[in-house]
């Protein structure tokens, strides 16, 4: 049942992405100042928003783990964080390629870019920490603490383009500006692609969560086997 749902969700995401790609490349016109390169925005912004959503969901799951002690929340938080990190990487790489054309540079130590890089390092650290600790409860507690700490940086990323006016442009989406900064057709396309990418990310999280469940089952079987061996000895 669950596998069928994951396959269905991934297929629906794939179809929507293909339809979006058709509209991005063949229906929407070039942007007056930037030409064709502005189309990177349709992956750059949804990837960033998917990353933010993932980190926020991981924050909630981490708090739930700390308050309940249920390892299921920890597994889910780890899965969501890993997938969010993938989309943060998509965001930073596509942004860098876009910047090379528009700004003439691949990278600058602007507040938005730097805080995004810091978040990637924090969440990569989160995944490395999980690999380094074998004891499940200790691993879950420290991971939850790091996830909560990491979310502070996510807030800084979100607000950085309002607080500091440096290289990265200010907010463009009408949900933040009230409208007027972007053509409505282009903005709608961002939301369509966000929906498709969120669907894909959800399918990946479900697959990853299943793997976390299998890992826990393996751990549990190994512990049982070790305990039985000790009893025999």
């Amino acid at each position: 049942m669950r596998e069928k749902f994951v396959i269905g969700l991934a297929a629906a995401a794939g179809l929507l992405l293909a339809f979006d790609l058709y509209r991005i490349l063949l229906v929407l016109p070039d942007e007056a100042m930037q030409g064709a390169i502005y189309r990177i925005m349709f992956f750059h912004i949804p990837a960033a928003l998917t990353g933010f959503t993932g980190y926020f969901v991981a924050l909630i799951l981490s708090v739930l783990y700390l308050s309940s002690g249920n390892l299921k929340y920890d597994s889910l938080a780890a899965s969501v964080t890993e997938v969010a990190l993938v989309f943060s990487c998509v965001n930073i790489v596509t942004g860098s390629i876009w910047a090379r054309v528009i700004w003439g540079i691949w990278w600058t130590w602007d507040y938005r870019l730097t805080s995004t890089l810091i978040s990637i390092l924090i969440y990569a650290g989160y995944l490395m920490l999980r690999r380094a600790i074998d004891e499940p409860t200790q691993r879950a507690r420290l991971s939850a603490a790091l996830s909560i700490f990491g979310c502070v940086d996510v807030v800084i990323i979100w607000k950085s383009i309002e607080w500091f006016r440096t290289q990265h442009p200010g907010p463009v989406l009408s949900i933040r500006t009230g409208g007027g900064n972007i053509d409505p057709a282009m903005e709608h396309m961002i939301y369509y692609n966000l929906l498709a990418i969120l669907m894909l990310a959800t399918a990946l999280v479900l697959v990853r969560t299943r793997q976390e469940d299998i890992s826990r089952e393996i751990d549990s079987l190994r512990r049982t086997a070790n305990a039985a061996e000790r009893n025999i000895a």
Partner: protein
Amino acid sequence: MDPHTLALMYARNFMFMFYGFSAAWLIVAVYVISLARRGARLKKELDDVRRLTDSADSPL
């Protein structure tokens, strides 16, 4: 801007757009492949551990 420079600029923009799209999909594809490989490894590991515990439980 003369038409030749404009054509070059458009070609360059299009090329970088292609790089951007390719990079985005490449990152997702690498992750999906790593996920599939990890899934296969875990499934094999689970089968091995189950076989081990079953053989330990079975009477001689």
